[in-house]
């Protein structure tokens, strides 16, 4: 049974359309890369899944019709989001940022700070004064604290030091192995994506133009749709 299905999804910002027909399907426990050039609709697709933009078309998560749900209900079905641009709650402290989102499960303040020791150090600092990378860590930790079944990371390693990035990739791989969590990844590093992801979906101008196994992403395809 598929965990997440998008069929012919359209979305728009006010009057300007951004998605014209996105198809995507994800099995439980799968890690998928969502790829495409800048401005092609990756983040909008993510927002569509998280019910942050109005959509048309079929969106199903675990048998539920997402398109009828408000954002918080979708999240409670088990979708955790690390949004583009971090969006930490700037006037809250690190620990408040995390506790605001917490739902019971494996991930607690203790476990996420094991992944990001820096956050424990800065636990009572307001998010607004954190460094860029620290804010990114808060955003990832916050999404984990909801203990999702599907974790969506929209450029989640942006601004992170290489060492931390490697740790996060390692943690994600471990996560997938141990808990069977599904993951959708948007990231610019094709190399790292191909190491972790099993499947890939490529967007161009708000439309799914390619999907398949990550191993099938040939240099031609990546040159054509991603530019490298």
């Amino acid at each position, binding site marked *: 049974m598929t965990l997440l299905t998008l069929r012919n999804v359209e979305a728009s910002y006010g009057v300007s359309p951004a998605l014209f027909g996105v198809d995507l399907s994800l099995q439980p426990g799968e890690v998928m890369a969502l790829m495409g050039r800048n401005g092609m609709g990756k983040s909008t697709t993510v927002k569509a899944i998280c019910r942050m933009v109005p959509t048309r078309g079929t969106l199903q998560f675990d048998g539920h019709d997402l398109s009828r749900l408000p954002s*918080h209900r*979708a*999240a409670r079905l088990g979708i955790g989001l690390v*949004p583009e641009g971090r969006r930490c709650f*700037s006037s809250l402290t690190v620990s408040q940022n995390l506790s605001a*989102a917490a739902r019971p499960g494996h991930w607690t303040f203790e476990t996420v700070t094991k992944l990001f020791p820096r956050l424990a150090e800065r636990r009572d600092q307001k998010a607004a004064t954190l460094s860029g990378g620290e804010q990114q860590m808060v955003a990832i930790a916050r999404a984990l604290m909801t203990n999702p079944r599907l974790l969506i990371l929209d450029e989640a390693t942006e601004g992170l030091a290489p060492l931390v990035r490697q740790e996060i990739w390692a943690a994600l791989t471990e996560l997938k192995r141990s808990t069977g969590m599904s993951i959708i990844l948007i990231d610019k590093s094709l190399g790292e994506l191909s190491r972790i992801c099993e499947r890939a979906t490529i967007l161009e101008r708000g439309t799914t133009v390619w999907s398949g196994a990550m191993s099938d992403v040939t240099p031609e395809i990546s040159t054509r749709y991603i530019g490298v």
Partner: protein
Amino acid sequence: MSTILIIEQVLNGLQFGVMLFLMAAGLTLIFGVMGLINLAHGSLYMIGAFAAAAVAGLTGSFLLALFAAMAAAAMAGVLIETVVIRRLYATDHLDQVLATFALILIFSEGTRWVFGSFPLFLDIPDAVSGPVSLPGGIQYPLYRLVLIAVGLAVGLGLALLINRTRNGVQIRAGENDREMIAALGVDISRLYTLVFALGAALAGLAGALVGAIQSVQVGMGEPVLILAFVVIVIGGIGSIKGAFVGALLVGLTDTLGGIFLPELFKLFTDAATATSAGSALASMAIYILMGAVLIWRPTGLYGARA
């Protein structure tokens, strides 16, 4: 002026401060924590007072009147939030200003329509009326001591709610980024409605409690509105402690200014000029205080520094 009188006036100032805090408490939630500009806060205060007066008139029970005040104001709050405010979270503050200004018109005239143009009667219950003797021989109205107690209790409760509970944290997160907190699975709409209702209920409670020693009439909420904003801003938006300290400062400034400024002026000019110039300055005193505080600390005493 005798020392005992000075002490009594300081006490009056503090008491007025706590009363202001009580009046501002609901707004601290709605404006301070949720970040909504609700000009209709004074209307909620008025609704509370009118509901209390009506119920006290019918049943003779002050306690029932207080419940009625909170219930009526909370209901009005839920109505306001779900019908109007909810649609305005995404837009900027200005639409909230216009919408809640419109609400003032509707509520004020609506109340007049229901209750008529004359002030209503609402009095202190016998059990807590009359003065008591404080140490030092000060005769002090018991009811005002009750107000102080309620004010302190409300303040403490609010501080706990906002700083110690998870819902409090979520509300503040919602103020930062509503869309994001919803995407994390928090039903921020319902939470906001609840908190708004709570803020409204507090306004209603204050209206009933304070209305008992003032006049219950249409338009009674407007001065309260301005004072409540002043108190919160001096303290720093979002800080319950700040609102409390701000309220005490305003209370002291207002009370002592009104009494001592004319006396002070008498040292320089003749009595008549002093009385009128002194009290003119006294009426500006709290605004001068607010201006000075904001110039010195642009985000209030305890507000988040940028």
